[in-house]
């Protein structure tokens, strides 16, 4: 088995870290292990190791080795390798493929759970409402309940207007 950092020497240090219900394995040669401070279990975190190296490597692989540049801010994966930080919020779209694996190792999940800006929450609620009204309308048409259908149609119109007003503001 090859060292997963230098990919040159044989791996002699094998690490397994379990956080929550996720397991991560890393295989290192002696040189890389010492360099990463793996000998000192207190000072070592798998996430740090993966953050420093894994992410940019993963990005390179995901993009077939071609240099990808963020169209919004000009940030490259080489910059990420150097800084460990991204350039702007658009970088999350630009480098999404390479980041996915990294996020898995760092966090509890890869889908956001929690606070959502109110404006977004409102538009989300409105689109949900629109969907259920559409169903109501379809059912009313099938049932030939035209009074109900007319009512649903009016509500759909009002909801669409609210949604449009929200995205315009």
């Amino acid at each position, binding site marked *: 088995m090859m060292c997963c950092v230098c990919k040159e020497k044989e791996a002699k240090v094998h690490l397994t870290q379990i956080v*929550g219900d996720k397991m991560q394995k890393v295989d290192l040669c002696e040189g890389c292990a010492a360099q990463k401070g793996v000998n000192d279990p207190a000072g070592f975190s798998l996430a740090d190791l993966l953050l420093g190296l894994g992410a940019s490597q993963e990005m390179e692989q995901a993009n077939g080795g071609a240099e990808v540049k963020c169209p919004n801010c000009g940030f490259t994966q080489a910059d990420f390798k150097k800084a460990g930080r*991204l350039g*702007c*919020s658009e970088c*999350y779209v630009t480098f999404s493929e390479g980041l996915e694996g990294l996020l898995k190792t*760092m966090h509890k999940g890869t889908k956001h*759970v*929690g*606070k959502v800006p109110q404006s977004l929450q409102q538009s989300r609620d409105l689109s949900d409402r629109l969907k259920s009204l559409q169903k109501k309308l379809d059912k009313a048409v099938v049932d030939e309940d035209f009074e109900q259908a007319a009512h649903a149609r009016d509500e759909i119109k009002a909801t669409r207007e609210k949604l449009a007003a929200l995205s315009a503001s």
Partner: protein
Amino acid sequence: MTIHEFLVPPSEIAKREGPHNKIVMSSRVRLARNVKGLAFPGWAKKAERLRILDSIRPAVEALPQMSDCFTETMDNLTLLDKNILVERHLISREHAAKNAGSGLVLNRDETLCVMINEEDHLRMQALRPGLQLKQAWQAIDTVDTKLEKKLEYAFSPDVGYLTACPTNLGTGIRVSAMLHLPGLVLAEQINQIIQAVNKLGLAVRGLYGEGTEALGNVFQVSNQMTLGESEPDIVERLSKVLSQIIEHEENARGTLLEKKTKTVYNHIGRAYGILANAHSISSKETMNLLSLMRLGVDLNLFPDLDRALVDELFVVTQPNHLQKRYSDKLSAEERDLLRADMLRERLRTVSRPKPKAGATPPPSDKN
């Protein structure tokens, strides 16, 4: 108004009380936020950072929570000012290194502090004395909800609030508590606790956060993961772990007092002896000995000493606070002398620790 005229005196801050403040010195919740489309502070050029600061700062200053606030750009603060803010735990070391293009907005009672263009465009934190994580979260949540009406946040429905470092992605929340754990340190159980806490995906750090030493037996415990778990869940999980650590610390103190009475009294008595009588003392030694005196207060060994005085001394004996009191630039040696003078003066009226009657085993015949 200068930052020094604005800051609440450490003696006042030290008097603030909160639940479990024997062990939990303070609670803090910070949120990381960025403005959509703009380069993060670490990548933005100076001109862009200045523009970002100019657009964010008025929005923060206009918050009702920030009426009567202190607001300044980092280039207008001296290095000493910034270091004092670090010693007060109001800004990070990283922010203290910033200059033009970064700013700070601090509310009147120092319970709310917003750093502009630190690692993210916005790093806002709510602070509370004692164990009050939920209250701190609610306070910062309210501020955040107000700000999102004025600033367009970088947010993705998939991965949440977008941050410069992927480690903060999602909720952008860091919930932390500063704990005083002399019992676990003396009982040599602290490493076990740190390892157990780490296994739960929580971080344990030193007095000034990432990569710093646990001076004065003070540790910071915080969440590490920010994506895939909601803010209230993170607050709840940390609260549960903290109440366990508090229990372990109390047990460790109880056991030490029962089984190693002499060792504990010896540590505390020596700490008092040195602090009240030294003529030269370093900041590090001061913190470690003050920690033992704080333990002594908790164990009722100092009937005429208030914990608030110990907590105040924790702050005012630090290098930059000491430097601030004197106009001439002090060398480390000069500071050590002045620190010792201050400690002797402030502890002059504190009588030596009195072990409780019955708590000390009777001397054996051999002595």
